[in-house]
């Protein structure tokens, strides 16, 4: 069951990713990316990370991608992608490099992924306490400082976005 779900979602993600990069229409690209995000969210669920899965959907699919969609629509960048390509010579090497990169990663993976020592949060334990509760607890204890810094980051980003997008 788990294996089937993994393979299905993986296939959906990879195929969508291929479409994402070769799709001419940015709106479709966005939808493919949403599909990737959802399939990855499902994979998160498989990995027992319910909270992250939900946040993935809410933040990524629900907010960030809608923002993308917004911009695409606002700027009305429909189907036409400009014909002239200043870097057309780079296309083939880019794909080749992608393959090389993948094979390089594959070579690394062949030499077995070193799993470090196991932590204390076993699946059973996480299930008992609740994934969300654990993350909440960690966020407000061990990761309090990064959490606060994140809030500052978001604050600054909000200000920055407003200032950038403001018409003079």
């Amino acid at each position, binding site marked *: 069951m788990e*294996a089937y779900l*993994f393979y299905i979602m*993986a296939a959906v993600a*990879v195929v969508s*990713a*291929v479409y*994402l*990069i070769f799709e001419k229409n*940015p709106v479709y*690209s*966005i939808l493919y*990316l949403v599909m*990737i995000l959802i399939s*990855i969210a499902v*994979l*998160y669920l498989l*990995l027992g*990370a319910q*909270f*992250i899965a939900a*946040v993935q959907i809410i933040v*990524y699919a629900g*907010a960030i991608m809608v*923002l*993308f969609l*917004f*911009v*695409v629509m606002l*700027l009305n*960048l429909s189907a036409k*992608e*400009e014909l002239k*390509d200043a870097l057309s010579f780079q*296309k083939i090497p880019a*794909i080749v490099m*992608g*393959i090389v990169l*993948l094979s390089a*990663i*594959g070579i690394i*993976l062949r030499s077995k*992924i070193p799993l470090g*020592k196991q*932590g204390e*949060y076993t*699946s059973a334990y*996480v299930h008992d306490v609740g994934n969300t509760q654990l*993350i909440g607890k*960690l966020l407000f204890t061990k*990761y309090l400082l990064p959490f606060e810094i*994140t809030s500052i*980051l*978001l604050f600054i*980003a*909000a200000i*920055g*976005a*407003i200032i*950038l*997008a403001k018409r003079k």
Partner: protein
Amino acid sequence: MITVTHYIVLSAILFTLGVVGVLIRRNAIVVFMCIELMLNAVNLSFVAFAHYLHSMNGQLFVFFTMTVAAAEAAVGLAIIVAVFRNKETVNIDDINIMKW
């Protein structure tokens, strides 16, 4: 049995596709999305490792990455909008005045 390797391979494939997308696409928004794809690929490996290592740190890291991604999207898209207002384009090849 799905092992961590499966997830890492998937993550690597998605990451590489993201890289290729950044290299070959000219639409700034699509390039941006490819970057998001790369981020997601890495997030996936984080969660996978977290799961197989019985650790929460990976998940928290993903949480922070998402926050950063949100901030990045907001600012990045604002920049794209600002650029579009000036140059009537989102083709990143036309935004190349930062050169010699």
